Structures are given as structure tokens and as C-alpha cells.
């Protein structure tokens, strides 16, 4: 089946089986491997991308469901000139990652969350990221990073 969607601002079109999950479409068909597969059972959030600007677990969506939609992955957050998104900078500056496996999903979930709640409390950040697990358990600095990003983006 032919699917066409916008991925990080570029139109991409591929012929895929209907059962192709969005995460495999992005990784295997489009070659964007920044989005990780962790649990593969909708629980860990490692595969989080934006669909029309909102966080979605791409292991729990079919590529055909994303036909005609706008997808943003971790590769699409930095500016075309390579300047990191404030959320990426905040993760870098606040040691928001250890092994880095959960990071793409964390960053995508966090940027979606800040759109809905630009000035969150610490408790709200923790709730906003409840669908994302960090196996290195680095939650403290992840939360710190998101709060720092909220501050720098609010300026």
C-alpha cells in the first residue's frame, strides 16, 4: 500500500504492507534510526515521535494510519543549520542522559508536553513523562532538564 507523509518537513512516500508499524516505517523504510524500539509493547516511550505536533508511541500506530500526517522525529528537532533545540541543549547541559537509549523518546515526549503546559511544576513534569521509562533511572536530571528547557523557552 502506498503511504505518503511529511517526515521532518520532507514528503516521503513508500509502498508498505498495512501491518508496518510507524516506528519500523521510520527506521527501516526512511532510514531514520534515532527513534528507538524499547519494550515494543506501548509501555516505555522510547519510540515516541510527534504526529501533528503531539507525542505518540510509534510502536502502537500503523504507518498507514499516519498517511497524510505530519511526523517529527528526534532528527527533525534541531534547526537545518544544526543548532540544537532548547530541549536538546537542556538535556546536554543538565546531564539528562546516561546511556541515551530513552533520550529520543524523552525529548519528544517533553517537547510535546511543554506545548501543552509551558510553565510546569516539577510534579507536573514527572506526570507528563509518566509514559517514558529510563532504564538507567536518570529521572532526576531528566526532570531538571525539562524544567530548564521550560525556563529557557519561556524567555
Amino acid at each position: 500500500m502506498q503511504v505518503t507523509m511529511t517526515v521532518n518537513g520532507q514528503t516521503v512516500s513508500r509502498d508498505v504492507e498495512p501491518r508496518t508499524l510507524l516506528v519500523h516505517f521510520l527506521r527501516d523504510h526512511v532510514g531514520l534510526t534515532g527513534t528507538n524500539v524499547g519494550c515494543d509493547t506501548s509501555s516505555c516511550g522510547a519510540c515516541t515521535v510527534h504526529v501533528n505536533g503531539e507525542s505518540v508511541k510509534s510502536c502502537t500506530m500503523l504507518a498507514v494510519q499516519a498517511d497524510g500526517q505530519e511526523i517529527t522525529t528526534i532528527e527533525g528537532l534541531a534547526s537545518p543549520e544544526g543548532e540544537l533545540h532548547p530541549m536538546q541543549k537542556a538535556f546536554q547541559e543538565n546531564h539528562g542522559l546516561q546511556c541515551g537509549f530513552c533520550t529520543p523518546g524523552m525529548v519528544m515526549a517533553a517537547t510535546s508536553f511543554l506545548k501543552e503546559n509551558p510553565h510546569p511544576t516539577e510534579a507536573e513534569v514527572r506526570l507528563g513523562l509518566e509514559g517514558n521509562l529510563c532504564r538507567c533511572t536518570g529521572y532526576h536530571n531528566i526532570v531538571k532538564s525539562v524544567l530548564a528547557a521550560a525556563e529557557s523557552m519561556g524567555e
Partner: protein
Amino acid sequence: MFPSTFDYVRAGSVAEAISILDGSDDAKLIAGGHSLLPLMKLRLAAPSTLVDIGRLSELNYIEDRGDHVAIGALTRHRDLETSAVLKHSVPILSHVAGEVGDPAVRHRGTIGGSIAHGDGASDLPAAVLALDATMVVRSASGERTVPAANFFKGFLETDLGQGEVLTEIRVPKVSGGWAYKKFNRRAQDWAIVGVAVVRNGSTRISLVNMGSTPLRASASENAINQGASIEEAANLASEGIDPPSDLNASAEYRRHLASVLVRRALQEASA
């Protein structure tokens, strides 16, 4: 993990979805896919055809209709959570929607999908039961309405037949107190036990994950409606109910939780 093969059709209207369902033995609707796709990935479901209704804007609305609020089946949890109409007229429903899963799940899952899936461990089915909501169901032979009390039939089984689409949920406005208590131990988890209380004239109490369907705590309801104390009513929470035992909780612990949560919910709804 990926599902076994299937044909995919995106329906352009409810009528088209119904005609595709009618022409097949095992075609299935997909709305947000957040209950169905996990089952298909585990190969616990393997429909030959998926009929995607996810984008039917005709079923995506929240409307004030005087004494009730009408909600299109494809309204997402996120839209229930943030709806000004619901916050004003049926606040328990936007609150419960905000307790479902995590933000990413709420961006995809729909109220119709949650109710049609009919999981006794889900939050929204219990909420619509306590609210005494009415389901509007459409098929080739027309439209019928089913009260929530008659909708949930058994484990992942509802009153919906093949060829029927849940189109709308009509929810009476709530004038009195309400509360929703979801007990779980980890972030994002399902309720080990949950309790919804709605006081709209009389008091209705429903239970999450105390059986294969959402259940009414009838003994507690009767007691409180006949003037018993909150304490007395709460002690009857699992009377006549046979809760499951699983890795999260034994049946006995669930009974204990049900009493505690009914008490807390009644206290909060009466405050």
C-alpha cells in the same frame, strides 16, 4: 513484533464503515488502535480486514444538549481531558480521561474505542456506568440506544454486534458531587481497583477491575441511598462480587481496596 497480515481500508463515512463490516465475517474497526494494535501484535487478535474510522470528523465532537452532553465516539481522551464543556457539566469524565495511561496514549485513544473494547480494568467504561450514560449504536438497519447498565456483557464483550458502530455517548449532566479513585502502584498503570461515584439525586457507584466487566457496587448504592453511613455503605462494596486474583492483587486484597476506595470516594463526593 508486528501483527499478522490484514487488508486495510480507510472508511470515508460511518455508512461506508458499516457496509464493509457487513460484507465480512471478521473485519474490525480501528479507531485510535491503542487497545487493538497491542492485541494484534501479540497475535491475540488477527482480523482479516481493518476498517479505519480514526479520521471520521463526523464522530469527533463534544456538544452541550441541554440536560446531557453528547460525545462523538472518536473523541480522544486528550480532548475529553481538556474540554471546557465537560469540565463545566460532567467534570468527572474529563478527570477520568486524564487518568488513562499517559499523555501519548491519550493523544490516540478514543472514548468510543475504550467503551467498545469493554475492558473491566478500563477507566472510562466504569465512569459511563456510574454516570448512567447512553450509547448510540448505528448499523445498516438504523440506530438504537443502549443504557450503560446493559452495554457491558462479559470479558471484552459488549452489546455491539458485527456490523454495528458506536457513534455517540450521551452523558447526563452532573449537578451533585463526584469522585474517582484509581489505585495503582506504578506510573501510567491500569487501576488495580478503581471506584467512580456520581451523586445526581441518588448515588451511583461503579468499580474498575473487580470483575470481567465494569460493575455497579449495588449493595453500597442501596445502603447509601437508604440513609446508611458512608462507613456502613463502604463495607458492602464487594457484596455479591467475585473479584479476580492476579499478579497485582489477590481477590481478598481487591475486596479490601474496594471498601477503602468506596469510602474515600463517597467522602470526597459528599464534601
